[in-house]
């Protein structure tokens, strides 16, 4: 979980693109996935995601993302399969349930859309530094700095809280709390020993963070404060045009 959103350093073509370009590219691929009705097209988009991942040097991460998303969408697949009743029945099941061809199609479509639509965003975060993304959103998209800062801080705290959580689980396991129980009722009882320490620490860390930001001039910042510049180059324009065409293609196919 930790490694998924973390920046993977590199110097590939995609790494060097403007952060805004990367954001728009991933959004356009995402949109293309949700617009199109063609299974083939969406599968092609998934393949495209993997190709982009490979050319940025994060192919393995791309594959793991794919696997993770596939596992995650299993439940949705099953639900969709069982809930859609129109079309021809393929398999009859007890409890008056049936698997139809329309159901199969829409289940596969949903899962593929989910995968093809989520992958670009996750991959984009892997090849874009949080700070660069935040700076560009503040400078070019006029997003208020406070919101961008809150967002990047939240992302930055994820591994920190994950570590705390791991430490809490260790501490509670050591005193005999059965963290790996399969009993549902016992699992519910686990929430308290996990959440209370986490909340207390989180609140303290966040307050400390706020104080630290404040005394380093947080309130003095404006949209123009940023030192780094993010010029748009020819590469960026080419990628954006291609992405737009792809989205357009989605309408037609």
């Amino acid at each position: 979980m930790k490694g998924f959103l973390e920046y993977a350093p590199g110097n590939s073509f995609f790494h060097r693109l403007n952060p805004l370009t990367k954001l728009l590219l991933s959004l356009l691929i995402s949109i293309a996935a949700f617009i199109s009705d063609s299974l083939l097209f969406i599968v092609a988009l998934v393949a495209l995601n993997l190709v982009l991942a490979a050319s940025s040097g994060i192919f393995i991460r791309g594959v793991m993302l794919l696997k993770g998303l596939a596992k995650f969408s299993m439940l949705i697949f099953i639900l969709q399969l069982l809930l859609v009743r129109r079309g021809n029945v393929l398999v009859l099941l007890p409890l008056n349930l049936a698997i139809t061809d329309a159901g199969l199609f829409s289940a596969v479509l949903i899962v593929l859309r989910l995968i093809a639509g989520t992958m670009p965003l996750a991959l984009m975060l892997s090849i874009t530094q949080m700070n660069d993304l935040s700076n560009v959103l503040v400078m070019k998209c006029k997003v208020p700095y406070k919101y961008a800062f809150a967002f990047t801080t939240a992302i930055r705290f994820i591994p920190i809280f994950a570590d705390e959580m791991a430490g809490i689980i260790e501490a509670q396991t050591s005193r005999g709390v059965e963290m790996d129980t399969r009993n549902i009722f016992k699992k519910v009882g686990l929430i308290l020993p996990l959440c209370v320490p986490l909340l207390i620490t989180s609140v303290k860390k966040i307050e400390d963070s706020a104080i630290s930001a404040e005394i380093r001039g947080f309130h003095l910042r404006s949209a123009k404060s940023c030192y780094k510049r993010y010029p748009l180059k020819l590469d960026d324009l080419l990628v954006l045009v291609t992405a737009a065409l792809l989205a357009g293609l989605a309408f037609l196919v």
Partner: protein
Amino acid sequence: MIDLKNVCFTYQKESTVKDISFHIGKGEFVAIIGSNGAGKTTLSKLLNGILKPCSGTVSIMGMDTKKTKTSILARHIGFLFQNPDRQICKNTVADEIRFGLEQILKDKSLIQQRLDNVIAYFGFDPAANPFRLSRGERQKLALASVIAAEPEVLVLDEPTTGLDYSECMQIMNIIRQLNEKGITVVMVCHDMEVVLDFARRVLVLSEGRLIADGETREIFRQEEVLRRASILPPQITQLALRLGEGFEQVFTVEEMARNLLARTRPQYIGTVRRETA
């Protein structure tokens, strides 16, 4: 009591503990020392089953940690973490200790009895809110919770972190008393003065390997071993090592003072200085 045979543990392709074997008998007070990243904390977690060895066996009182559930091990091995805040989850001191006991005991009257005993021993106010206590008090509370389970073995990971001197002494003195009652204590510590004052035996780790195992005073005299582990011995020992011959058995302030006094040239001996208030 505690037996490690050829224990190896690897985390994320980096071997953190390599081929470690040792035996700790009942009632011992052992310190594990070594530089940062040497594997001390990993070793301590291997002792109570939070981490299972990749190869080799860790057996505590005959129980193999790989084959025994951590919750069972928790009845016999108490673990005090560096940060008490990762454990504390209830609103009152009594509830916190009771929670720990409920994980391993079913008998309500026994739980209450142990709770009362431990609160009396530590002198807590049972209704106090743990989150309003100082760091030292919270560390004592975590220790109390661990002790209430009446474990035979106590493992401590840097118990003095973040504590001021008197809090540190309070906790260490309680631990010493528990050791005198027969509880085996294994302590990871990077404060050599504390190690010298409390531990009778020392295990020295360097880059995941056990490079020395012996009586505290003996180990602190082995300069080469300590250098390999990037450890500075306690101040008086450093001084004794530098002064060389005649100071081989000097470890405490009193020993050093007497030794120096015996060798001081007469012209430096004058009237006794008395410290005014």
